[in-house]
């Protein structure tokens, strides 16, 4: 089924339409620029039963797990708040049996997405993993966490991971156009692979820009429009994480969250205040300003540091030269048509 051409909608609409209970849900962002507003909206709508993929899950994973939305987690790295005496929502959910986790290394996790993105059924990973408990201890994926095959060329054992094709990817980027061409720059991580491996893609961006801007800088586009399902302009959409060129990490809010994550009740109180009592990102930012002052937010705004423009220029942008002659044959249109007639190549 082809997707509609223009995909601009609200975050609540996008989540209603494209995120289903029980989905394999993947966080597209890696460590930075996390799609916080989409995470919040999924929690507000009470979606649940997810198999969640997150390569560097901190706030995103903690909140979705604390909300009881996640049954299974595929991860490489999780939060631990407050050292030995602290904890995390993930730890509490593992302890009470409400969550299962499948641990991969960063590369193994990414390899599953690379396979999925390119349509392969598996990807080769590094054989050293076989001596570790990542390979030996398996959770819900069982035998399919890793499988070992013989390389047909070298005859050596090759370790593989299965492709991952999540149902839906939520991802935040710097800019996109209304058709869903999404541009992201900075730490690339696994962001393009997470998005393109997925069946549906919901994009939030700091700004929606004219398609001309996208077309003049296609090297920044990580998701082409034909793969996108929804585009939502959400300024400050990744706060309290940072977005390159827009704002820095907010250490105040980050600190409040990290402290809250160490205890279940405190985390619930944080979520009540910042997720459930704020109906959307604007309300969240308004509440932040009310609590801490607009000055704190302004201090985070990035000063510009522009990339040098890449020159996409060409000697000419027309087949016809200044004298109206085709550059290849040196003929005018009239001469070409006469020639075709002469040679008997034209038909009624």
């Amino acid at each position, binding site marked *: 089924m082809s997707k509609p051409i223009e995909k601009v909608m609200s975050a609540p609409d996008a989540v209603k339409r494209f995120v289903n209970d029980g989905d394999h849900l993947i966080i597209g962002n890696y460590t*930075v620029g996390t799609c916080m507003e989409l995470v919040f909206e999924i929690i507000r709508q009470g979606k649940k039963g997810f198999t969640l993929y997150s390569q560097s899950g901190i706030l995103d994973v903690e909140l979705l797990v604390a909300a009881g939305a996640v049954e299974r987690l595929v991860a490489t790295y999780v939060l631990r708040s407050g050292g030995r005496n602290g904890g995390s929502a993930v730890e509490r959910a593992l302890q009470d049996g409400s969550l299962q986790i499948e641990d991969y290394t960063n590369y193994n996790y990414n390899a599953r997405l690379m396979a999925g993105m390119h349509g392969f059924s598996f990807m080769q990973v590094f054989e050293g993993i076989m001596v570790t408990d*990542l390979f030996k201890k398996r959770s819900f994926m069982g035998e399919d966490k890793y499988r070992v095959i013989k390389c047909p060329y070298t005859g050596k054992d090759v370790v593989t991971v299965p492709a991952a094709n999540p149902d839906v990817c939520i991802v935040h980027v710097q800019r996109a156009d209304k058709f869903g061409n999404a541009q992201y720059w900075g730490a690339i991580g696994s962001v393009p692979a997470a998005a393109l491996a997925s069946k549906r893609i919901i994009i939030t961006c700091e700004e929606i820009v004219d398609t001309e801007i996208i077309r003049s800088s296609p090297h920044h586009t990580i998701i082409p429009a034909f793969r996108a399902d929804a585009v939502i302009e959400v300024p400050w959409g990744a706060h309290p994480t940072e977005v390159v060129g827009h704002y820095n990490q907010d250490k105040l809010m980050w600190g409040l969250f990290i402290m809250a994550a160490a205890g279940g009740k405190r985390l619930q109180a944080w979520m009540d205040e910042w997720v459930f009592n704020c109906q959307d990102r604007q309300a969240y930012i308004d509440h932040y300003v009310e609590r801490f002052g607009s000055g704190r937010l302004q201090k985070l705004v990035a000063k510009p540091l522009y990339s040098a423009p890449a020159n996409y220029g060409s000697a000419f942008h027309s087949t016809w030269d200044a004298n109206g002659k085709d550059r290849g044959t040196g003929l005018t249109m009239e001469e070409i048509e006469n020639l075709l007639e002469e040679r008997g190549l034209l038909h009624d």
Partner: protein
Amino acid sequence: MTKKYTLDELLIIAVAREIHDYDNVILGIGLPTTAGALAKALHAPQANLMMEAGMIDFEPVIPPNHIADVMACKGYACATDLFTAFTMTYRGFVDICFLGVGQIDKFGNLNTTSIGDYYKPDLRLPGSGGAADFISYSKRTILTMRGGEFVEELEYFTSPGYLGGGNERDRSGLFPQGSGPAKLITQKGIFEFDPVTKEIVLASIHPRISVKDVQKDVPWELKISETLAETKPPSDAEINFIRDFAPAAAMGRALASEIGFANLIKELEARGKIQ
């Protein structure tokens, strides 16, 4: 008489000294980033600093918050992806990487995943992240430990050191010959691995620390190098660089977050934003 230093500074400086000019370096989260900046500023100007998020040849101007913090530098030479950062490690292009330690055993194998039953853990630690793949395929790996522990047996085997010791790692055929952890650096000393048995050996001890202080953290009889040395104290230039570049790193995590948080509260109180 050189300046007085903190143990965090001593640790960072010992790490920085492991970076050689022209090394291709993968920096992990935390103190290695400060060590990388120090090395580049003072003794390894041509070192190529990289992070697994895909940044190649970056020069941090402030301490990065994490391994994907491009806002800590003013541009960098190449923005590749995480997949490529690891495959270039697998192909042998990475000279040195740094890993933090949760638990470490006698042969430099590591646990950063969990304490207790893996499926219902007493403590859930962060996990592998890039660790298992980097220590497998980087030419050298330097381990750092603050708050981790030496154990007879790991509760979860996250990252391979020398496996059961001797030549087991090389013999397995799974890793580049001669790879594996080169050193462990703690706030008490610097450890190396015996060239034959691959057992961890105390090679250098920080000033004013006794062998007994080190032994009390280790549940087996620790091997001591016959050439046990005292760690060379930091130079003023090294100390000054760290304090200027990353005062919080000089203070250490606990003190820096205590004071940082107090500073936030003070600011908010002054603005009447909290009671």
